[in-house]
């Protein structure tokens, strides 16, 4: 839908209108209802897809797994072992449900960016990464406060051992800012920016190719290259999308692990 919309926009103008941030601003499809937008619909769709997939994969689980069960189990095992156990340590099982939900939700929503006909990464709307980062923020601080108590948790953040006393004046504000501001911000902005830029890049090459096709013969000959680069970038995007889901989950696990360690 976006493609068609943007394409007509490009045709009716004088020259080529390059895609911009406005292309991410999808109006609600029910007039006046701000919740009836494509990204929100996609978020619900992703929840539905993930639930269906893993329920189907877990049903009739057998010792000799079916292909579906194998696929579901490999994703689960990957999150549990590589992101849970190896990072958090012996009490990782408590956090696996959260990490697993996070990973699959982000992954599917990112992949929507290159799924034909859908072709919009939900996470390129910044509210979604913000909310996810807020969840992680509360989880790792809650875990830390519960483990150490509020006072000694904050002390652990503010005062790293083995530093001359006056240096704390310089360092403590940085530590506080890192834990309470920079961490959630970088977490959400990294995901958002990657999805946003990736989608924009694809738009540029596909819309550009389409526009070249409407030009004179010389331009028509060039347009396949634009499409070819667009297709190559689609594969590249696939990689980025998986990687970003992985990094978000990995950093969440690392933050939880950091809040749990004893000496801090």
């Amino acid at each position, binding site marked *: 839908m976006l493609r068609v919309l943007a394409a007509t926009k490009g045709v009716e103008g004088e020259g080529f209108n390059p895609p911009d941030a406005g292309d991410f601003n999808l109006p609600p499809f029910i007039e006046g209802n701000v919740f009836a937008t494509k990204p929100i619909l996609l978020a619900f769709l992703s929840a539905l897809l993930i639930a269906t997939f893993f329920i189907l994969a877990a049903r009739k689980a057998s010792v000799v797994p079916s292909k579906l069960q194998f696929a579901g189990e490999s994703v689960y095992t990957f999150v549990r072992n590589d992101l849970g156990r190896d*990072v958090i340590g012996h009490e990782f099982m408590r956090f696996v449900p959260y990490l697993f939900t996070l990973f699959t939700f982000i992954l599917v929503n990112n992949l929507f960016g290159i799924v034909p006909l859908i072709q919009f990464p939900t996470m390129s709307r910044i509210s979604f990464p913000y909310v996810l980062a807020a969840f992680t923020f509360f989880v790792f601080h809650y875990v830390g406060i519960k483990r150490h108590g509020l006072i000694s948790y904050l002390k652990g953040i503010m005062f*790293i051992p083995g530093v001359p006393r006056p240096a704390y004046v*310089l*360092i403590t504000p*940085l*530590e506080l800012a*890192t834990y309470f501001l*920079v961490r959630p911000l970088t977490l959400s902005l990294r995901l958002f920016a990657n999805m946003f830029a990736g989608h924009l890049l694809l738009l540029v090459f596909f819309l550009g190719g389409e526009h070249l096709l409407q030009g004179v013969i010389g331009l028509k000959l060039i347009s396949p290259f634009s499409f070819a680069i667009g297709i190559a970038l689609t594969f590249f995007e696939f990689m980025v999308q998986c990687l970003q889901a992985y990094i978000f989950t990995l*950093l969440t696990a690392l933050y939880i692990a950091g809040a749990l360690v004893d000496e801090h």
Partner: protein
Amino acid sequence: MSPRNDENTFWTIFGYLLSGLLIWGGIGYGLDRWLGSGFFLLGGLLLGMGSSLYLIWLRFGRN
């Protein structure tokens, strides 16, 4: 070091550098606005850079 730790180290360092500049640079900027002077912003940025480098050394360089 596993790639996992590298990832963490990289983002932690990035975070420290960013917050150093933001916090001390911000304080300097505020002082400049308040006092109508011009050198606190520069001083704050330098101080922030220095202290975040110090903090990075404390976290990762000591052992």
